[in-house]
């Protein structure tokens, strides 16, 4: 059956019912447009958040502990004998021979690695607040973190200028009412107290980091921990943050130390994203499906009105499948034109949203709403919509084309 003929009939049907056709197209266009807008908004905010997250923390952290407890000497000696009441031997905390580990990892790593000491402390400036104290080497730190670019006051190298200097988050500084140059006291877990001064203030954009993380030199952190010379974390920055999971596994296999990718460290957050994605996809699917109901209505109406024409076309020798294809093509025409308008509406909505700025209480600035533009959103929304439209047309078309021509011809005669 010549497809030109079917297209011609389908086109004639939709163009002679301008109002109905426009309503159907508007339904599809709205569904596609709002779906693209939602997808752009949701993915934009998600990507924006992930960028902040990835920038604010190491891509992979090699920790001094292991995923499973190291076998104890007694187990190694007497593996077949069950023993009770034998205390585990406590090893010295930290990573053994950190320089060697770093050198060996650096030899193949697509990125860089820097040592650090992570401990807990209390910062005292009138009020006391518990913080995570991260001891860093500023020269190496700039290779593995964005701390240097996150500095709002002072510079990362200012840590080297004063004894026991610290860099604190902006939110913490506001809580403690401290400014650059102010003196604070650091209290370690074992009661060690050191006088310190604020060398700078940073803002990462992540509340938990800006409120609870303090940077100092490695030596200061070791003093607070009461372990001289210890390095308990190696911080890795990768050329491609998305390789973090693979590289973490590789590093763990090589060194035996627990290596945590940023994805693993934020797995709860990422799983909540997965749930959010599922909800968003469901809502978008429902929007597209609902918009296809207009097409269903139109095709139902046309097939009802065209029962006689269907009977005639069949009586002339057109096959049932060919006649059915006419109505599916009509839905496809409505769908395709609706989708093209929907793309334009979607782009316009995304652009409008991106012009709106909202006040970020953490950063204290007006930031534009993040929109993610990708052809994938347009293609997926269009594809699903087209599928819904043709699917919606299939059932009324099938019902109508099953009609026996004689019944209609007799009825009309």
């Amino acid at each position: 059956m010549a497809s030109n003929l079917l297209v011609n009939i389908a086109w004639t049907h939709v163009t002679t019912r301008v109002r109905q056709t426009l309503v159907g197209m508007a339904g599809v266009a709205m569904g596609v447009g709002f779906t693209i807008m939602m997808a752009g908004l949701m993915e934009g905010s998600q990507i924006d958040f992930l960028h902040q997250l990835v920038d604010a923390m190491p891509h992979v952290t090699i920790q001094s502990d292991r995923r499973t407890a190291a076998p104890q000497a007694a187990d190694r000696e007497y593996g077949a004998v069950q023993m009770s009441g034998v205390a585990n031997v406590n090893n010295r905390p930290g990573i053994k021979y950190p320089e060697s580990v770093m050198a060996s990892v650096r030899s193949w790593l697509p990125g860089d690695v820097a040592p650090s000491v992570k401990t807990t402390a209390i910062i005292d400036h009138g009020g006391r607040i518990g913080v995570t104290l991260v001891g860093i080497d500023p020269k190496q730190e700039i290779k593995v973190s964005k701390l240097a670019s996150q500095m709002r006051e002072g510079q990362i190298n200012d840590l080297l200028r004063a004894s026991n200097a610290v860099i604190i988050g902006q939110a913490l500084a506001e809580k403690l009412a401290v400014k650059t140059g102010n003196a604070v006291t650091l209290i370690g877990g074992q009661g060690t107290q050191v006088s310190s001064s604020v060398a700078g203030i940073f803002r990462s954009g992540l509340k938990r980091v800006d409120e609870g993380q303090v940077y100092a030199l490695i030596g200061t952190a070791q003093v607070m921990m009461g372990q001289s010379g210890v390095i308990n974390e190696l911080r890795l920055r990768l050329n491609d943050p998305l390789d973090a999971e693979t590289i973490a596994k590789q590093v763990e296999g090589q060194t035996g130390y627990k290596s945590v990718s940023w994805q693993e460290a934020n797995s709860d957050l990422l799983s909540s994203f997965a749930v959010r994605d599922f909800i968003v996809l469901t809502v978008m699917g429902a929007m597209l499906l609902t918009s296809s109901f207009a097409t269903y209505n139109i095709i139902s109406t046309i097939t009802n009105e065209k029962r006689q024409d269907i009977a005639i076309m069949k009586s002339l020798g057109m096959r049932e499948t060919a006649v059915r294809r006419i109505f599916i093509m009509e839905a496809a025409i409505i769908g395709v034109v609706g989708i093209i308008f929907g793309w334009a509406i979607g782009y316009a909505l995304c652009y409008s949203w991106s012009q709106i700025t909202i006040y970020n209480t953490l950063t204290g600035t007006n930031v534009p709403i993040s929109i993610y533009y990708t052809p994938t959103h347009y293609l997926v929304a269009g594809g699903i919509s087209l599928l819904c439209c043709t699917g919606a047309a299939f059932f009324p078309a099938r019902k109508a084309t099953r009609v026996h021509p004689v019944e209609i011809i007799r009825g009309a005669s």
Partner: protein
Amino acid sequence: MSEIALQAVGLVRRIEGAVSHTLVNGIDLAVNKGEFVAITGPSGSGKSSLLYLLGLLDAPSDGEVIICGQPTSKLSEDDRANVRLTKCGFVFQFHFLLPEFTSLDNVLLPMRAAGLMSEKDMQERGLELLASLGLKDHANKRPNQLSGGQRQRVAIARALSNRPEIIVADEPTGALDTSSTEQVFGILREIADQGRTVVVVTHDPALAARADRRLHIVDGKIAQTFEGKGSAPEAAVAAATDH
């Protein structure tokens, strides 16, 4: 010996249900190539049902329809559609033209569906057919811009477009005025004279009288057969006019 274009063997059409009806009851019939056959009979006698069976629009409950030597009872629905498309042309009481299309597009419809010619050849043939039926100036008009007789002539042109062996017409003048009726009669007669087989169901005794053979159907059976043009006996005329 004449070549048989259309043959029915023991044709039965039964409607099954709470009350069963037999519309066509064991009809045997052979129509020669180029023969003009008129089927007459009172309302409800089964003449249209017989025509639909002969034109493969309906499937028999029993028996066989043979078109140009091809048995059709075992054909699939698609194959039956293909036979209708290429070997049969239909003219109904109402024109049944597609209202959104021009006369020419309606005529081109079966040719485009068959796809056996180039678009240029189809256009030429379509215009030629319309011209031969006196519709040259109406090719680009839609059905609602034509008179009843003109519409029916477009329907005849459409039926002829694929050069079918057989034309089946179900009361083609039933909705026409006298002058249009006369025109349509003449055209159908001419089609038969040109060598095509024409089977017409009619209530019109004048049209029946122009046929080469008249079959009078009563209760789904052929009650009488009259051979020869212009020799419709009074009984047949009376029966044909018995609405």
